[in-house]
């Protein structure tokens, strides 16, 4: 299934960017902005790069005044990391990737007094986004943040007490190519450790499937979150690996 996620990420990466082929690597370059997040390469599945391929990869970046950088799922191209490390690249980050196979979902009892609703009104969106911001230690959301959530086309879920107090929220990204990413699962501190996060995750996963996602994945922000998602049925299947080579 990782191949589908890699294809999904590659489709995003090439949109609106210069695309250069360097051996088994697809290099995507933002013509006017050197920001590292939008200038990176992805190797083809099963790639076994030669020194010439790696030299071409570096050249594709440096000739455009960009830092050589890769972001990809290493399970699909296990020979790339050792070859690049041997060529002077450094592993800078590794984000775990978890998928929930169809049918693997585990029921999560909803805590007493908590209900999950699909936000529909302005007030519900504002309360949900405010709960997410509080949970993530961010300042209260602006009207633009709330409007952006409403307009995103994503599947949202708002957790609140039956008497209306916001408890948390989350989203599943609008399904594209049969794939959805669950993200932004948040629970306000006073409602932590009673199963709200697991219940939000489960219901978003089911909603994404109902909307046509055969593959639902997420990237946990930490070990505690990873344990919650594992209880829902998610399993680590790969990671997103970040490699870079600083040039003088």
């Amino acid at each position, binding site marked *: 299934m990782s191949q589908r996620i890699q294809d999904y*990420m590659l489709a*995003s990466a090439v*949109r*609106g*960017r210069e695309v250069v082929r360097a051996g088994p690597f697809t290099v995507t370059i*933002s*013509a*006017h*902005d050197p*920001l590292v*997040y*939008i200038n990176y390469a992805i190797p083809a599945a099963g790639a076994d790069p030669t020194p010439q391929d790696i030299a071409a990869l570096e050249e594709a970046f440096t000739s455009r005044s960009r830092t050589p950088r890769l972001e990809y799922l290493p399970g699909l191209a296990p020979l790339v990391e050792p070859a690049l490390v041997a060529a002077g690249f450094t*592993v*800078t*980050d*590794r*984000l775990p990737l978890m998928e929930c196979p169809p049918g693997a979902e585990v029921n999560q009892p909803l805590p007493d007094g908590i209900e999950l609703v699909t936000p529909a009104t302005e007030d519900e969106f504002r309360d949900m*986004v405010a709960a*997410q*911001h509080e949970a*993530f230690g*961010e300042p209260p959301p602006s009207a633009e943040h709330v409007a952006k*959530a409403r307009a995103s086309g994503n599947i949202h879920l708002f957790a609140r007490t039956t008497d209306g107090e916001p408890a948390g*929220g989350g*989203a599943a*990204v609008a399904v594209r190519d049969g794939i959805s*990413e669950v*993200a*932004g699962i*948040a629970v306000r501190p006073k409602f932590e450790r009673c199963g709200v996060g697991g219940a939000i995750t489960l219901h978003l996963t089911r909603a994404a499937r109902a909307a046509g996602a055969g593959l639902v994945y*997420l*990237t946990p*922000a*930490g*070990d505690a979150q990873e344990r919650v998602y594992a209880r829902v049925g998610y399993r680590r299947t790969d990671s*997103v690996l*970040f490699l870079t080579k600083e040039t003088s």
Partner: protein
Amino acid sequence: MTDLSYEQARAELATVVEKLESGGTTLEESLALWERGEELAVICQRWLDNARARLTADRG
């Protein structure tokens, strides 16, 4: 950590950069896009910093 995943933040950042590059926006719109771009870059970096912290912890 944030209500956007790394992939979401990065995809939106790419869109913001594309809009700024293509021009045709008013000064006010450009400033708003710029601010949003900065915000998204911070979110991306926060994800990477967090991943790096976990990587370092795993390596012991």
